[in-house]
C-alpha cells in the first residue's frame, strides 16, 4: 500500500508538472485529491490494515496529500499571477492621448480686472456701491461742483438724453448718492461701473468704458492717507516694487487734485516704448474732496475731510495684459476672450 501511495505521488507530481492551465489544474485536483480521487481510493483500503500499519500508512497518505496540495497551490498562484499580468498587459492604454477636460470659459478681462481691483479695496475695508448708468445732470455734474456752463464740462462731452438726464460720464454720481444716503457718517466705498463719453473710437478711446472710483470721508482724512492708500493698492495690483508719483492736476470735485503715475509695468521704471521713456505710466486721478462737494453731500467741511480717486478699468487692463487696442474689449472675439481663461 505504501508503494502504491509513493507511486501515486510520483505520478501526480509528474502530471502536475505538465499542467497547462487553471482548468486542467482543477481537474487534476479532483482526479487525485477529490472525494472520488485516486488518493481517497487507495486510502479506502486502510480498513484491511493491521493496527500497527494503519498510522504509518495514514502518515504516508497525509504526506502524499500535502505534497500534491503544495504543488497545486504553487501552480495556482503562478496561474493567477500570469492571469493578472496578462490582464494588465491587455488593459494598457496610451497615456499620452488627451484627457477629457472640464469646461473652461473666461470672465471678461474688464470684469476680471475690476474684480481684482474690488478685492484689493475690500481687503482694505471698503464696501462697493453702485448706481444708475443714466443719471440726472444734478448728480453727474452739479453736485460735483460742475455747474452748468462750467468750463470743465468741456473735458467730458456727454451723451444727453434730455436737458437734465444723461449717460453718466463718470461713476462719481454714485459717490454723491452714497454721501447723501450716509447722512453725515464716515464713508469708505468704491464705485465701479460703465460710463459714457462722446469720444470717437480708436485704439485708445472708447465712448463706453468702465471706471472704478473710490471715496473716503472721515473726521481726519489727510492727503498723506490718500498717498498711502494708493501706494498700497498699486503694490497689490502691480507688485511690491511698484511706486507711485503724484503730479498736481485739476478736477472740479477735488482740491488739491493730482494725477498718479505708477512705475512702468513693462520696464520697471527704466524707460521703454510703453512709458515713452519716462519710466512712469499714468493710471489714476485723485484728490481731496472739494468742500463744496462735501457740503452738497450733507457734510460740514469743517468737521470732516475726505479723499477720492478714480481709474479707468480699460487702461489698467491694457497695461496689465499688454493689449494694443481698446476696441478688442467690446468686439468679443472668442480668440481674444479665450486668452483670459487663466485664474
Amino acid at each position, binding site marked *: 500500500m505504501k508503494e502504491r501511495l509513493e507511486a501515486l505521488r510520483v505520478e501526480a507530481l509528474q502530471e502536475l508538472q505538465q499542467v497547462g492551465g487553471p482548468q486542467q489544474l482543477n481537474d487534476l485536483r479532483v482526479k487525485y485529491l477529490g472525494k472520488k480521487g485516486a488518493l481517497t481510493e487507495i486510502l479506502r483500503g486502510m480498513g484491511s490494515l493491521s493496527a500497527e500499519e494503519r498510522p504509518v500508512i495514514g502518515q504516508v497518505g497525509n504526506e502524499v496529500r500535502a505534497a500534491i496540495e503544495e504543488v497545486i497551490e504553487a501552480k495556482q498562484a503562478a496561474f493567477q499571477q500570469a492571469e493578472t499580468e496578462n490582464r494588465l498587459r491587455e488593459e494598457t492604454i496610451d497615456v499620452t492621448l*488627451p484627457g477629457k477636460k*472640464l*469646461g*473652461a470659459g473666461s*470672465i*471678461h478681462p*474688464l*470684469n476680471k480686472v475690476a474684480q481684482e481691483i*474690488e478685492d484689493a479695496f475690500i481687503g*482694505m*475695508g*471698503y*464696501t*462697493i456701491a*453702485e448706481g444708475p*448708468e443714466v443719471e*440726472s445732470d444734478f448728480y453727474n455734474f452739479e453736485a460735483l461742483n460742475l455747474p452748468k*456752463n462750467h*468750463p*470743465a464740462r*468741456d*473735458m467730458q462731452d456727454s*451723451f*444727453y*438724453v*434730455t436737458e437734465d438726464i444723461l*449717460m453718466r460720464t463718470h461713476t462719481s454720481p454714485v459717490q454723491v448718492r452714497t454721501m447723501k444716503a450716509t447722512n453725515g457718517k464716515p464713508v469708505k466705498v468704491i464705485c465701479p461701473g*460703465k460710463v*459714457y463719453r462722446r469720444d*470717437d473710437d480708436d485704439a485708445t478711446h472708447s*465712448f*463706453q468704458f468702465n471706471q472704478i472710483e473710490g471715496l473716503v470721508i*472721515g473726521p*481726519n482724512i*489727510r*492727503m*498723506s*492717507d490718500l*498717498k*498711502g*492708500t494708493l501706494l498700497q493698492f498699486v503694490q497689490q495690483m502691480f507688485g511690491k516694487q511698484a511706486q507711485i*508719483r*503724484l*503730479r*498736481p*492736476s*485739476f478736477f*472740479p470735485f477735488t*482740491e*488739491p*487734485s*493730482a494725477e498718479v503715475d505708477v512705475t512702468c509695468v513693462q520696464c520697471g521704471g527704466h524707460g521703454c516704448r510703453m512709458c515713452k521713456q519716462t519710466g512712469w505710466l499714468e493710471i489714476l486721478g485723485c484728490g*481731496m474732496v*472739494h*468742500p463744496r462737494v462735501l457740503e452738497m453731500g450733507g457734510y460740514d467741511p469743517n468737521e470732516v475731510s475726505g479723499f477720492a480717486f478714480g481709474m479707468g478699468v480699460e487702461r489698467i487692463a491694457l497695461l496689465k495684459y499688454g493689449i494694443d487696442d481698446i476696441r478688442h474689449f*467690446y468686439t*468679443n*472675439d472668442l*480668440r481674444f*476672450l479665450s486668452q483670459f481663461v487663466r485664474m
Partner: protein
Amino acid sequence: MNVSYKWLSEYIDLHGYTGEQLAELMTSGGIEIDVVESRNKGVTGVVVGHVLTREKHPDADKLSVCTLDVGGPEVLQIVCGAKNVAAGQLVPVATIGAVLPGDFAIKRAKLRGVESQGMICSAKELGLNDKLLPKEQQEGILVLPEGTPIGASILDVLAIDDEVLELDLTPNRSDCLSMLGVAYEVGALTGRPVKLPDNRVSDSADHASAHVSVRIEAKEQCSHYSARYIKGVKIGPSPQWMQNRLMAAGIRPISNVVDITNFVMLEYGQPLHAFDADKVEGGRIVVRMAHEGEVMETLDGQERKLDSSMLVITNGIEPIALAGVMGGATSEVTDGTVNILLESARFDGGTIRKTSRQVGLRSESSVRFEKGVDPARVVPALNRAAALMEKYADGLVLEGIVQELAEQPQQTVVKVSIEKINRYLGTDLSKLEIETIFGRLQFPFELSADGVFTVQTPSRRGDITRDVDLIEEVARLYGYDNIPTTAIEGAATPGALTKPQAIRRELRKRLTDAGLHEVISYSFTHPDRTKLFPALTGADLYPVRLALPMSEDRSVLRTSLLPQLLETAAYNRNRKNDDVAIFEIGSVFHTEEAELSRLPHEKHRLAILLTGNKNVAAWNRKAEAYDFYDIKGMIETITDLLGVSGDISYEAAQPEHMHPGRTAAIVFAGERGPVTIGYMGQLHPTTQNDHDLGDTYVLEVELAPLYDAASFDIVYKALPRYPAMERDIAVVLNSDVQAGKLVGAVRETAGELLESVRIFDIYTGEKLGADKKSVALSLVYRHAERTLTDEEVTELHGKVVANLEQSFAAELRK
C-alpha cells in the same frame, strides 16, 4: 497755449534751465507740458542775402540767375526757380556747406549749364510752418523785411533757434493762457522775479473822449469796456521779431495793427479788438444784447443771424462786432485804415461760450473770455497795445481812456491756518516754509500770532477762492512727492460685496466653469434692434433715445441683451468660430414715458447664448450639439445655487422670433402672484437665418427677483436613518402631455412620503403608435422617523399610478 522759450525769457530769467528742464519743472508743478518742440528743424549756414541782379536763365524759362551779396567778400551767383525773386529783395540764402531740414546739404552745382553757389530758400525749406506765414509769403521764396542786416544768420533773424513748450492746461489755470501768467508760474517755481512789459504811451493834447463814447447796456454780460483812440496809423507788416513770436505761438501775422492786438493778447491774456474808427458811426460804442433775428456780417464774410442770448458791440444802431467772438465786416481794419478804435473789455465767460458754440466760432479770443480774463489787466493791456501801435504803426495815441466799469472787481481774501494746512496734507510744514511759498507766488499775505494766514489772492488767479485752493498751492510748490504716505487713522472697517454683487460673481464663476465666455457689449444700439424681442422689452415700454447720437446704429439704449449676443455669435461664426457659448450680465433700459422726465428703469439681466457644439470631436468622444436642455440646465443650476428653484417654473411660450415649440417662459412665483421674468429657448429658424446662425439657444432673465429671493443660508438636515423604497413606473400616454405636469401630478398624489421623482427614460416608437410616448419614472419613498412597510408603499404607489391613468389617460407599461 504754445510758449516760446525765447519770448518767455523776456519776462523772466530762464538762465540755467533748458526747454526740457523747464518743461519738467512746470509739469511737476501742475502745468503739464505735452511736448517741447525745437523751431529749428535742422538749419545751419543760412544767411540773409541781398539780391543784386536777377536775369533770366539762358536755357530755362522757369529759372532765374541771381547775384547776391551775403555779407562776404564775394558776390554769389545762384540759380533760383521761384517766380517771386526780384532784384533788391532781402532773402534767406543757403550757402555752400549749409544744411536744410531733412539733412539736405547744399553743394556747388550747375543748373542747365549755369553755376549756382547755393540756394535761395522758401519758408517751407527752412522748416517753418508755411500755413502761419502771411499769404503773400506762402508761395515762392521768403522775402525778408527791409533793414534786415545782410549776412546775418537766418536763425537769429527768424528766431528759429528757439523751443516751443506746448502747455496742456487744466480748466482752472487759464492764467497760463498768457506769457505773463506763465512767467508768474515759473517765478513761483524758481523764485525769480517777473519783468513786466513797457506800456507807457506818449502825451497828447487831443483827447480820445472827443472821438469815442462808451456805454454798457448789458451790464451783467460786460463788466468793463475800455477804449483808446489811435490816430494816423500806417498799416503795414509788423516787425519781424513780432511776426516770429506770433508764428512760434501758432498765430499767422497779418498786419501791424492786427498783429499787435494778437501779440498783446498772448502777452497779457486779454483779447483786444481794433476797429477802423472811421467806420464806427460817431465813435459810439454801445454794448448790448442782440435783438432776436438781427443780422450782421462777421470778418470772415459770413452773414450771422443773431438772437437775444448773444452779446454785441454796436455803434448805437447796429452791431459792429460779435463781442469776444469775432469782429464785424463793416468796421474791419484794412490797408486804408487811418484811425483805430481799440477795445479792451471783460465779457461774461458763459455768454461768450454759448455764443461761440452757437455760431460755431472758437477763437483764441473766445477761449480766453470763456475761461475768464483778469480784470486787473484790461487797462494795462489796452495801454500796451496802444504803446506798440505808436511805435510800430506810427500812430498817435490820444489822451485818456474812454471806459465804463459796470462792476468793480472783488478783492478776494482767503484765510488758512498753518495747522489746517498740515492737518489737511499730513505734513509738518513750518511757518517759514509756507511764507516762502506765498512769497514766491507773489500772493500778499499777513500772518496772525496764532498762525493764520490772511492772503490777498491776485486777480490773475481767479481760481483761488477757498482755503483748500491755497492748500493746493502750498502742496504743489512744496512738492507732492514730499508729502508722506500714511495709513488712515481710526478703527478698521469691514469690507464686503453686496448680495447682488456676490451673486453676479458666482454666476460668472459657474458659467465660465461650464465653458462659457463672458462678453461685454455696448449699451447703445440701433432702434430696430430693440424690436427684435418684444417679449423681453416689455409691453407699453419705450426705449431711451439719446438726444444727439453719434450714429443711428448707436442711438438708443438697449432694451434687452440678446440682440447683441446674436451679433457677437454671428461675428465669431464669420471668423470660423462655429461653437459659441457666451453670456452677458448687464443693464437694460426702459421707460414708460414717451418723453423722458425722470430716470428710466435700469434692470440687471443675465443673457446666455449657445450655438454649435459643446465639445470638439475627439478620439474618444463625438462632437455633441447644444440643445434646449443644456440652456435649461444652466438656469436650473443657477436657481439651485441661489436656493430659488422652488419659486421658479417653466411654461411653454411662443414669443416673437423664438421657435414656437421650443421656448419656455421663466416664471417666478412672486409675492403678488406669478410673473414672467425671462424666456429661454431656440431662436426661430427665420431669425437664425437672418443672423447667419445655425441652431441657437438663448436665455434672458431678470436678475432683481433672484437677488431678492436668493438665500445663502445653508440649513443642515440630519442624514436619513431609515431606509428608502424605490419604485419605477413606465406609462404610455399622448406625446403632448408635458413631463412637468406628470411629475407635478406624481408629487401631489404621493405627498410627503415621496422623497424624489426622476424621469429616467422617454421613448417613442412605432410599437407605441403615433402621438404616443412612454415615460419612465423612478420614485423614492421614505419616512423620516420609521421604516416604511412594503404594504403602505404599494398602496401609495398604486394611487400614484391610478391618478396618472385617470388624469392623463396613461397606460401602465408592463
